[in-house]
């Protein structure tokens, strides 16, 4: 009798509280509350210097109309546009493929079932640090450290690709059936044999899919690096068209090109995801 009275929680007016003190709910409510508070705070904290909303909104609407309804090229030709897109795709591809190769070896060290605890932990900490520095900072830092050029852009983008792929690859490696590894170890196979004959064949399609997913991300990163870090390609043309020539028609056309490519890549990666990992999240 006594036990039940302590379990039932009552409110101040004597009614039984049907929402018991659930930790999950408390944390969720707390998170939402803090985020709302910070949002309200943010609008007070913003720097509104030189902002004229009544002028800015119609102007943006007009710009968007010009962009999307009257796209045209004026400062370069279609051939050049395709060449610039090629540069952006090339940067993205190089960063992805080099990243995948390096990430493969690092992921072998990071996977807990293939490596020892300390190596795995060290790799994970280094990767977490690399991920914390935004890509653009890596690119800009390498631009001065390695000299300007595509090497800096690729190196900078490479860092984040490695960090992303190490996480994905090592998770794929950890899902390899323990029995296979044990069976091979029992036959006296060395570490390298286990990798090439058990781990690699059973995860190869996963690795390829993850690499392609990263390529999709790297494409938009390459556009961003062109605009913000002068890495060249279509992003740089976008930056020039909007920041120097103020040519909304050209901005519109470049945006259409980027949009088209991004949608094509997205459709391809959605197909891949559906085929190889239906249950995994989009991340």
């Amino acid at each position, binding site marked *: 009798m006594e036990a039940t009275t302590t379990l039932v929680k009552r409110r101040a007016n004597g009614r039984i509280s049907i929402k018991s003190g659930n930790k*999950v709910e408390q*944390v*969720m409510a707390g*998170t*939402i509350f803090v985020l709302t508070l*910070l*949002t309200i705070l*943010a609008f007070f*904290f*913003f*720097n509104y*210097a*030189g*902002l004229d909303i009544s*002028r*800015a*909104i119609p102007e*943006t609407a007009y*710009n968007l109309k010009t*962009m999307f309804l009257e796209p045209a090229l004026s400062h370069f030709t279609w051939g050049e546009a395709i060449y610039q897109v090629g540069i952006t*795709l*090339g940067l993205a*591809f*190089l960063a992805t*493929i*080099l990243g995948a190769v390096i990430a493969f070896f690092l992921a072998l060290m990071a996977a807990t079932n293939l490596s020892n605890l300390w190596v795995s932990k060290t790799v994970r900490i280094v990767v*977490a*640090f690399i*991920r914390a*520095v*935004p890509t653009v*900072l890596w690119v*800009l*830092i390498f631009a*001065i*450290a*390695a000299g300007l*050029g*595509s*090497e800096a852009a*690729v*190196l900078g983008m490479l860092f984040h690709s490695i960090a992303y792929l190490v996480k994905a690859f090592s998770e794929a490696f950890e899902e390899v059936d323990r029995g296979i590894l044990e069976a091979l170890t029992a036959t006296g196979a060395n570490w390298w044999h286990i990798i090439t004959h058990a781990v690699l064949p059973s995860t190869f399609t996963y690795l*390829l899919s993850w690499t392609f997913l990263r390529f999709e991300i790297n494409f*938009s990163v390459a*556009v*961003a690096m062109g*605009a*913000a870090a002068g890495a060249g390609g279509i*992003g740089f043309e*976008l*930056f020039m068209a*909007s920041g120097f020539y103020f040519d909304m028609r050209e*901005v519109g056309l470049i*945006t259409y090109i*980027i*949009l088209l490519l*991004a949608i094509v890549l*997205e459709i391809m990666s959605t197909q891949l995801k559906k085929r190889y990992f239906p249950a995994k999240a*989009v*991340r």
Partner: protein
Amino acid sequence: MNEKAMRSQRKWQTIIWVAIILVFTYLASDITNFNIIHGIATLPNAITWIFSNLTITSETLERLPKILEKLAETILMSIAATTTATIFSLFLGLMGSKTTGTSSVLGVFARFIASVARNIPVVAWALILLLSFGQNSMTGYLALFVGSLGFLTRAFIETIDEASHSAVEALRATGSTYFQIVFKAVIPQCLPQMISWILFMIETNIRSATLVGILTGTGIGYSFDLYYKTLNYSAVALVTFVIVISVIIIELMSNRIRKVIL
């Protein structure tokens, strides 16, 4: 025999894949003038340069309060962009999902908005908005807002689609209205996953806020750009360090929250 044939087929497949990748790598390095040997050769120099120049001196530490103020602006901007985008994405997500969508026209509309907002890079939004909104927090906020709107709408549509239909069906059978179904069955079921997406979006936005800041001249990105262009590398190191610390702290916090709610 059969196994042998399969094996050789597999071998050929691998060889073809590797060949395709090598050809593409060659084409890509050709078009971008990327020289892998040069790249590797400069790497040691680059690393020595980083260690010798990117060191924080006591002189630059005096700039810390100013930098922290900019950092706060960037973090708040990312959070505000995410939370306000969440409100709109929630409605778009409800419209776009098969479980809760009311009409196919609205569903297509929601998916279309999400796709356009997501696939035009944040950089492009920032550059477009910069022209009329000028150099202030609002520009960065709006650019991040549009990007978050696209991403969160897609994530929410998937989350709502994945949630179980039985609760919705049960409520429908009792004659509940549409809003009762949404608020009593759909939202409570999807909330943990949604919060997880929101936290992920905040992390992503803080990283992109630096990029947007460089372009629009706001927040921590502006500080970085300023010191970078005036060759004050010690301050550049300090800004980078501050960003790293804040990103790691926010990641740890959201991982903690995720562990409890998921």
